[in-house]
Every structure is written in C-alpha cells, then in structure tokens.
C-alpha cells in the first residue's frame, strides 16, 4: 500500500469541497474545532431506503454525542457530519470519498452495501483514512489486508455459520422433525453467497437440500416459486433476499396456504423487520431469522427504538448498526485524543469499546473484523420480534416447528 499522504491543505476552490461545505449542518457555537466525519450512504437509487435508514442512525448518534458534551478528550469538540450520497454505485461512492478526504474528514462511516464498501474502503485506504463499515456483509471487505478498514458487525459467513448451528440445535431439541430444506435466494452477492454456503454445509448436519431457487431482483411474482414449494414440500424454507421480495414471497405463501414446519431466514430481508410485522402480522407470524439485532435487555436500545418510531421511522438494523458504528468512532476519538488519521487507526486497532447495546461484548478487531460480532436469532411471536437464541439474550422460547 502506498505511503499515506499527509495532505492537510484544503482546496477551497474545488467545487467538491466548497459544495460539501454547503451540504452539512454547521454546528453552532462550538469553541473548539469540530471533528469532521464523513457519513457516506446510498441515499438515492435502488438502495435509497436502507441508505437513508443508515444515515438516520448516524445522525442520531452524532446528535447524542454532541449533546452529551462532544469529544471530551478534545476539549468538548463536536462531531460535524459531512453527508455523502453514494447513489447506489461504487463509482459515486468513490468520488464522495475523495471529496470527503479533501474536506479534511478524520474518518468515514458507511457505506451500507458490500459492493460500494469494497470501493470506498479502498479509496480511503490511499489516504490512510479510517473507514468504519457499518453493514456491508461481504467478507471480502475485511479480507483484503486494508489497514484502514474496520467492520463492527458480523459478515455473512459468520451469520450463515451461526444460523446453521442453531438450526441444528433447535431441530434436535424438538426431536428432529425437520429433514428437508428448500433455499430461496436473490441472485446477487449476498443471496448467492449465503445460499452457496448453506447448501454446502447443510448436508453435513444431516439435512437434505431438496432445492435451491435463485430469483431475480426484482421479482414481480412468486406464484411459481410457491408452486414448486408445494410440489417439493420441504420441512424448512430458508429465504435469503431483500425486503420487497421476502415480503412478496411470504405473502404469496400465505395466500396459497403453504405452511412449512419453519420459515428460517438467514439475513432475511423482512424476517426481523418491524415494518413487515406491522403490515402483515399473519404472514410474519412464526418466522425465524438470523440477523443483525440489538441486545433486548439493554434499555438504551429500546430508548432509541422509541425515538426512531417517534420520527415515524421503523427501527431497522440499518439504524442501530450505523448508530453504534458512530458511537464506536466517538469512543475511539476519546482514546486517540487526536483527530490525526493514523492515531485513529491505531486506536481502532486496540479498541475495547463495550459501552454499546449490541450483543457483541467488548470490541476486538482482528484484521479489521470485530471478533465478538454476532447475529442473533429472532422469531416473530405475538406480533413482536423476540430473541430466541442465545440464551443470554432470550426473550421467549422458540416455537419450532410451527406446526407438528
């Protein structure tokens, strides 16, 4: 990797820097120089919903941090967000990183989508600009040896492994009623990767993968897939797709009266979504998901949920993951006692941040991945999403299988 350029000169004449200076809200009245942080998400284009949820999480975190007195180690300096739109493409994301770099940000938090994160972490690496990945589940993001990249949440390999292990535990505890599996996944990176992993490992646990169905993004109609489901009659259906398709699939299953012993999702788009539960309570009932989740026993997560819902938004994983990623950054700034990028990278490497409400325990970054990060298993019960595994966070006993 090339040597970091300590380019501190700000090019005010650049349309980029000048325009970005217009784009972010100036925090008034701060006596000490604020810490500039890039908040980069795809807020327009195909991924707009998730990107906007992430941004919301980041901004709420910044609001909380600043209200509590800013970064005390830097004399109460407030965090000043520079908002960037990755426009749902890696190229736009990269251009934003360049602008943020030149505007003098100390770190970047983003960029939700794996393909975009691959590009943005790399672009930031040229300047040794610390980049905290908030969601981006593809494991390649943290496997390229980039020193500036830190992912706080788990990747899809970890999620798939935990999902498998827990499926086996649940099934065994219930007397092994389920033997056959059908995987339905969306066709791009996340769905295919997850499905490949599951299809490879499930037989080892003694399950027969009867069919793997890949579908397009978007899929306009799931009737035929549900038809196949009726014909194949699997015990367990494992969907791995995005919200719209997941919702359509499950609704179609309800309509066609197809009820497997369990709908067991891995990073399911709508499986642990308050929006889905609210809008389709019947279809959602009983769905199990292995997904990003918060610690239900920590009051702070519920406080944040209330605040988010008061804004008429849904408390989705994008919100609390990016919220916590920003808090990680704040903690790091306190420990680094400086806005120097190299100092921040070093502080992240040695971070033990544990003052958060995610079920990860104290932070420990190994090659850029937070070793303690884990997904939780949830199930939709009584019109609410309850954690069922692991026991430390259990809110309700799992109902498995759904029908005998």
């Amino acid at each position, binding site marked *: 990797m090339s040597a970091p350029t300590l380019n501190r000169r700000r090019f005010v004449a650049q349309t980029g820097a000048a325009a970005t200076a217009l784009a972010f809200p100036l925090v008034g009245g701060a006596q000490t120089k604020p810490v500039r942080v890039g908040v980069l998400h795809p807020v327009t284009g*195909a991924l707009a919903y998730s990107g*906007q949820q992430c941004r919301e999480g980041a901004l709420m975190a910044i609001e909380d941090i600043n209200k509590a007195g800013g970064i005390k180690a830097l004399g109460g300096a407030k965090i000043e967000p520079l908002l960037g739109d990755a426009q749902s493409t890696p190229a736009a994301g990269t251009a934003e990183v360049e602008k943020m770099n030149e505007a003098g940000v100390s770190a970047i938090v983003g960029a939700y989508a794996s393909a975009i994160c691959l590009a943005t972490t790399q672009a930031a690496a040229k300047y040794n600009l610390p980049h905290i990945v908030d969601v981006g589940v593809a494991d390649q993001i943290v496997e390229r040896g980039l020193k500036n990249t830190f992912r706080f949440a788990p990747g899809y390999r970890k999620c798939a492994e935990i999902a498998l292990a827990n499926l086996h535990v649940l099934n065994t505890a219930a007397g092994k009623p389920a033997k056959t599996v059908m995987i339905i996944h969306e066709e791009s990176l996340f769905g295919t990767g997850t499905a490949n992993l599951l299809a490879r490992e499930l037989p080892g646990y003694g399950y027969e993968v009867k069919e793997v169905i*890949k*579908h397009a993004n978007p899929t306009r109609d799931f*009737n035929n897939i549900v*038809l196949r489901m009726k014909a194949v009659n699997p015990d367990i259906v494992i969907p791995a797709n995005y919200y719209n398709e997941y919702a359509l699939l499950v609704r179609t299953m309800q309509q066609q009266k197809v009820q497997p012993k369990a709908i067991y999702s891995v990073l399911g788009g709508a499986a642990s979504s308050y929006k889905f539960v609210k809008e389709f309570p019947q279809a959602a009932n009983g769905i199990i998901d292995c997904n990003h989740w918060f610690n239900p026993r920590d009051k702070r997560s519920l406080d944040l949920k209330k605040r988010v819902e008061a804004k008429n938004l849904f408390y989705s994983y994008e919100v609390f993951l990016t919220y916590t990623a920003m808090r990680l950054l704040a903690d790091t700034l306190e420990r680094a006692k400086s806005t120097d990028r190299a100092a921040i990278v070093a502080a992240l490497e040695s971070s033990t941040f544990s003052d958060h409400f995610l079920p990860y325990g104290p932070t420990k970054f190994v090659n850029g991945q937070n070793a303690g990060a884990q997904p939780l298993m949830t199930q939709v019960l009584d019109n609410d999403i309850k954690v069922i595994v692991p026991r430390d966070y259990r809110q309700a006993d799992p109902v498995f299988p759904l029908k005998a």
Partner: protein
Amino acid sequence: MLDFGILFPAVLNGLTTGAVYALVALGLTLIYGVLHIINFAHGAALMMALYGVYFLKQYLGLDPYLALLPMVAVMFVGGYALQRGIINRASHGKDENILLVTLGLSIVLENIALLAFKSDTRTIDTPYTLATVAIGPAMIAVPKLVAFAGALVTSAVLLWIVRGTDLGRAIRAVAREKHGARLVGIDVDHVYAMSFGIGLACLGAAACFLLPAYYVNPQVGNGFVLVAFTIVVLGGMGSFAGALLGGLLIGVVESLGGLWFGESLGQIGIFLLFIAVLLFRPQGLFGAKA
C-alpha cells in the same frame, strides 16, 4: 415438472401475470405506434400511477378498483400535458432527443417520488388481497383474475377508441402519414398529445389492477420497462391485440421458463423470444409489414 398439477397452475399464473404486463404494454404500443418514440419514462409513469392508487386508498379509503375512473382521468391529463408541454417542446421532434427527454423525465419523476414519498415500500390491504379462487388444481389470487379481466376490457376499449371514433381515425392517420394528415387539417400536435395521454391513462388502469397484488416504491417502474418493450415488439408496434396476446404469451413464457430453467435463468426466455421476433419477424405477431 411436466406434472399437470404443476403445469396447469403455472400456465394460469403466467396468463394472469402476463395480463398485467399487457396493461403496461398497451399504453406503450400506442405511444410507439403513433409517436414513434420509445418512451423511457413509461416505468416512472407507472410508478406515479401506483402511488396515486396508493394514496387514494390511504387517505380517501377508495378501493383500487373504484379508483379506476379517477386514475385514468388524471393520468390522461398528465400525459397530455407532459407530451404537449415538455416532450414535444424539448425534443424538436428529433428521435434521439425524444429519447433523452423521456430519459430525463424518468430520472426527474423517480426522484420527485423519492423526495416526496420517501423510499419505503408501500402496500395496501384490501379484503380480497389474500383471497383465492380454485380453478382445477390451481389457486389463483383474486386480484390477478380481476387484472386479467381488466386487461381484456382495456384492450377492447382501446380498440373501440381507435377504430370507432373520429379521434381514433385521426390517430391512425397521423400514425401512418404525419404530413399528409396535417395537410388534411388534422392538428398533429393535438393528436400526439392525445395519444400520449391515452397511453398514460392505460397505466392508470394498470396501476389499479397491479397494486393489490404488488407494492410501490420509487424504483418499482424499472422492473416493468424491459418486459413492456418486449411485448410491444412481439405484438407488433401499434397493435393492441398484439400487446394483449403478446403480454399473455410473455407471461406464460416467463412462467414456464422459470419452471424449467429456474426463476433467474428462466427470464432469458423473454429476451430470446424478443431477439427472435426482432430478427425473423420484426413486425411482430400482428403488425403490418413496414
């Protein structure tokens, strides 16, 4: 896979899905047949119509099927204004410019929706959303059956307009020979705008039939554009019967293709059919040879 219990429902599914595609394509084929423009903004217009149906239900409690008349009227007016006010003025009648203008429009419309309605996916709940009707071994969703009927009715109405009214005669004249039509006193710009308006009005109807079984968000139109183009070409540009039958055919091809080759790869059937028609019978099933 060749089991009747699977094939029959798959074909019926294909027919009902295809009917919705046909509704989207009907408007597009009129616009192409008369104005000879490939309307890139068709998907975005469908999306706007879907939002219209959504809000009518959300705030006025109006059932989507009852919203047919208002939606058709609003989309017609919108289409007329759009063509007369923006597309015609901006493009100076040149093909490649019309392309860019409709492209620009689609970007503007999609992002106006994003700004105004936010990016979340919206669905409506009606008493018949989950209802199904048993036809042999198949359980067909009621909204889809209604959509099928709707496609038939809409095609019939369009055929009546184009064959049985003065406007229709004017439209056919302009489609065939613009300058000649102008010479005999037909207001070509007005006819263009009327055609575009009717084309978008079809989308209004399509939206009413589509929303109960689907959803809406700012990007939802993109998923229908390519399929609609395929159907327009397959059926013959400018032919309503062609768009209807083409839509049904494409629906069945997609359905069976998905059954045999997988839902992802099965999509290829649509485009291979598209290419085959373009190469070997470009006038489509019902179009006249140019």
